[in-house]
C-alpha cells in the first residue's frame, strides 16, 4: 500500500527518533530512550539501522567520567525525512 514510503523511516520507533532529531541539533542516547519510551537494546538496534542508512551520525565520547552516545541527523537523513513527509502529505491529499 505504502510502497513509495522510505522503509527505513516507515517504522514507529525510527520515525520517532528522526522526528525528534529534526527539531534538535543533537541528542544523547539517554534523551532518545526517555522520549521514545523504549528499551536500550531496541533503541540501539534502530539507531544502528539509521546509521547504516546514513540518516544519523553517532558519536561516542565522555561526559565527565561517564560514557555518552550522541546522535545527530545527517543532511541525507533530513532530506529523507522531508521526502517522507511529502509522500505522506500526498497520501492524505494535503
Amino acid at each position, binding site marked *: 500500500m505504502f510502497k513509495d*514510503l522510505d522503509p527505513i523511516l*516507515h*517504522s514507529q520507533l525510527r520515525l520517532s527518533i528522526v522526528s*525528534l532529531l*529534526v*527539531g534538535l541539533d*543533537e541528542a*544523547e542516547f539517554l534523551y532518545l530512550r526517555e522520549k521514545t519510551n523504549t528499551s536500550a537494546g531496541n533503541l540501539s538496534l534502530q539507531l544502528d539501522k539509521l546509521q547504516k542508512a546514513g540518516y544519523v551520525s553517532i558519536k561516542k565520547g565522555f561526559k565527565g567520567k561517564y560514557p555518552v552516545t550522541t546522535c545527530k541527523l545527517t543532511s541525507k537523513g533530513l532530506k529523507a525525512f522531508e521526502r517522507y513527509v511529502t509522500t505522506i502529505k500526498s*497520501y492524505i491529499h494535503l
Partner: protein
Amino acid sequence: MENLDVKQSIKTIEQAVQEARRVPHGAYYYFILWGIILFLYYILNYFALTNSDPALSGLQGWFWVVFPIGGFLSSRRSKQDDLKETAKSIADKVYLFAFSGFAFAYITIYLAAEFGSFNYIVIPIFCSLLGLTVFVTGGIVNERFSIIMGIVGMLIGAYCLKLEVSQQCFLASLACLFTCIVPGVKMKIQRV
C-alpha cells in the same frame, strides 16, 4: 515494511516535533550575563567621561576587566550545561553562531577605531550590530519580544550617530538593557 498507517505516522511526527520543541535553549543566562557586563562597561564609561573626578577617569582604562569576567562566567556555565543537558536545541546553535559573529565583528570595528580616527562611530555600530543580532536570532527562534527589542537596539544605534561619545555611552548602556537584559529576564520567566 512495518504496518504503520499514515495517521499514525503523522501523529508520531507531531508528537516528536512537539517534544523536541520543549528542550530549553538556556540562552537567558547569557543574555542577562552579557547584558549586565556590557551595561556596566558603558555606564561606567559614561560616568568616567561626564564626571570630573580624576579617580574615576583614572579607572577608565580598567573597565575592560568586565569582559574576561564575562568570558569566565560564560565558560563555566557552558561546562555546567554540557554536563546536565541530554539534548541540544537548534536555537542553542543559532545563538552561538550569531553572537560569536557579533563579538568578532565588534572587536574588529573596535580595534579598527583604535588605530583610525572614527571613534565616534564605534558605539552606534555596536548598538546596531547588537540590535541586529537580537532581531535576527529572535526571528529565527520565534521570540517576538526579542525581535521588537532588536529593533529598539538598532534605532538607538541610529540615534547615537548624532551624539557625543559620552552620551553615546549612556545610550549604549540602555541598548544593552533593552536588547539583552530585558529579553533575557523574559526568557527566564518563560523558562525557554
